[in-house]
């Protein structure tokens, strides 16, 4: 369960987040949707305790990100935007390092690594060094790293970026499986179809504010548009037109 209340963050002159509030429930996939620069990554980074909000609070399972950052980090699995691997380590070693830093002893590490390698179908690349991995392979290992400690909450920033159709479908299956296991999944995307195909609830961010939130049906109803993409454009309003090409 993720709760974001009145979150604000400013970088110099740019107000990345302004009074943003939303929740993501257990057993649901929540999509954070918005154009580039809407504040999606900033919100996720505050949630991961990497950034500190200027105002507002963020919590995971009731644990505040400022009061107990280590407690929050122990509960989440994170796949940041453009996250990369250690090129000199094999896929298994990459995952094993994260398992070790999650506090597992050597034996537990091995078991956990084997479990995610199997879940994500990575037996073929498990012992290869990450140097030369394709984008799809990198994201799969990154996801395995995020899942190795079996977290209750999964935070994914633009996970399908750069993936081909088959890899995207495989990733969706993994995400749905986590949801079905009762986990809370929060993912960000700027691709409407992506969010529409996968998410149970959608939060639309624009210029650091939440401009719409609800199930896809609720958003369609609220904006009066049948097509989700039209609804998205309607929701973010002038921002889309103001986008400077």
């Amino acid at each position, binding site marked *: 369960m993720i709760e974001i209340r009145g979150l604000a963050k400013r*970088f110099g002159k740019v107000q990345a987040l302004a009074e943003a509030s939303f929740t993501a429930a257990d057993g649901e996939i929540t999509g954070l949707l918005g154009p580039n620069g809407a504040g999606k990554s900033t919100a996720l*980074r505050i949630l*991961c*305790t*990497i*950034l*500190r909000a200027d105002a507002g609070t963020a919590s995971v399972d009731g644990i505040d990100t400022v009061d107990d950052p*280590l*407690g929050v*980090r*122990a509960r*989440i699995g*994170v*796949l*940041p935007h*453009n*996250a*990369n*691997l*250690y*090129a*000199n*380590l094999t896929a298994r*070693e990459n995952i094993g*390092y*994260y398992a*070790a*830093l*999650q*506090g597992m002893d050597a034996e537990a590490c091995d078991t956990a690594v084997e479990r995610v390698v199997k879940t994500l179908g990575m037996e073929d690349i498990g012992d290869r*060094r990450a140097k030369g991995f394709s984008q799809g392979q990198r994201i799969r290992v*990154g996801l395995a*790293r*995020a899942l190795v400690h079996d977290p209750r909450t999964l935070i994914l920033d633009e996970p399908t970026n750069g993936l081909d159709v088959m890899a995207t479908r495989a990733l969706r299956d993994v995400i749905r499986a986590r949801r079905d296991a009762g986990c809370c999944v929060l993912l960000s995307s700027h691709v409407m179809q992506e969010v529409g195909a996968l998410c149970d609830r959608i939060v639309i961010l624009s210029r650091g504010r939440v401009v719409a939130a609800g199930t896809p049906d609720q958003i369609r109803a609220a904006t009066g548009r049948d097509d989700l993409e039209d609804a998205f454009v309607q929701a973010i309003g002038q921002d889309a037109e103001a986008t400077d090409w």
Partner: protein
Amino acid sequence: MKYAFRTFRKEFVDSVRERRAIASAVLLGPLFGPALFGGMFAMMLNIQIDEATEPLDVPIIGGADAINLKGHLGQRLIDVDPERFEDLAALREAVRRGDEKVGLVVDAGFADALRDGAPARVWIVVDRSNATALTALERVRAAVAEYGSTIGMQRLQLRGIDPRIARPFAVLTDDVSTPSGRSVVLLGMMTYFLLFAMMLGGLQVAIDTTAGERERGSLEPLLTLPVRRRDLVVGKVATAVAFMAVSLALGIAAFATTVQFLPLAKIGMTTNLTPAACLAIFAALVPFAILGAGLLTLVASFTRSFREAQTYTSFAMIVPPLPVLLTFLNPLQPSAPLMLVPSLSQHLLVTAIIKGQETAPEHFLLSAAATVTVGVLCTWGAVRRFRSEKLLV
């Protein structure tokens, strides 16, 4: 600290597999010093032995008037050849170009002056900016002066005067240095090279684990793990320390090996780089690895890319060994206050070990404590940097 060790283990494996890091830690750093040292030694050997004992060829102008002088120089293995230069200008130009080390010019009135008992003038043409000419200058000057004093004594004897009356002093030099002490002239530079080798050994690792990690995009997911930033930084610094310690050990071994093959005895030096002395040198220098690793990690953590980190860390590379250079200008003796100055204290300890002098254990401890303290402060600074969100944005 469990997590610091796990971070160390991963960074160590990662760095060992990085060709760049291994090359600078195992090859470049440890071998650079001994190679340069061997080259410099070969040069010194040339100057000191060959120049002093080999026949020296000196062009002369006006030699026809100074047959006896030429004979005397010839006995001192200085061959004078009058035919080579027409005039003074040509000789001076040849010396300036470095074609000739020195030239001898006998004044036109040489024979007359000698006969009349007036000072007979002889010039030695030399380019003092040419270091290799200085030994030749000294040899020619000494040979001419020696001949002059022989003539002077003969003149006094002819006049019935004891020649000793013109030599009121007998100046002797009593050299109290030991052969191993004299070797410090050469091996004193060893500390500088070893400190430099250490810095070079940890450089790639320190950059790779901080700026490199950020640039590759593996830092952000790492920071979302339930590990204290302190443990991450300590693990990273410890990796650089390990690499620097290996560079140091290899550097000392390379020096000790190089010295075996150099005929130091020929220039009156011996070295006592015994295994025990090598161990003592390692013990004196290894605390510096903590300072170096902490400093490099601190500096690199403020940069955003590998390239930027290389620029700033190269400044950081130069600074720590600087106090050693001070001692080339002003030789210092080990004392408790000086042991508080990192790199200088290591240099003084190593110099004492090479000289075979007694080293006070409390000096070892003071040096290590002061150096490690600075290293810990640097590491603490890097931890603060890792806690800051500016690390990522």
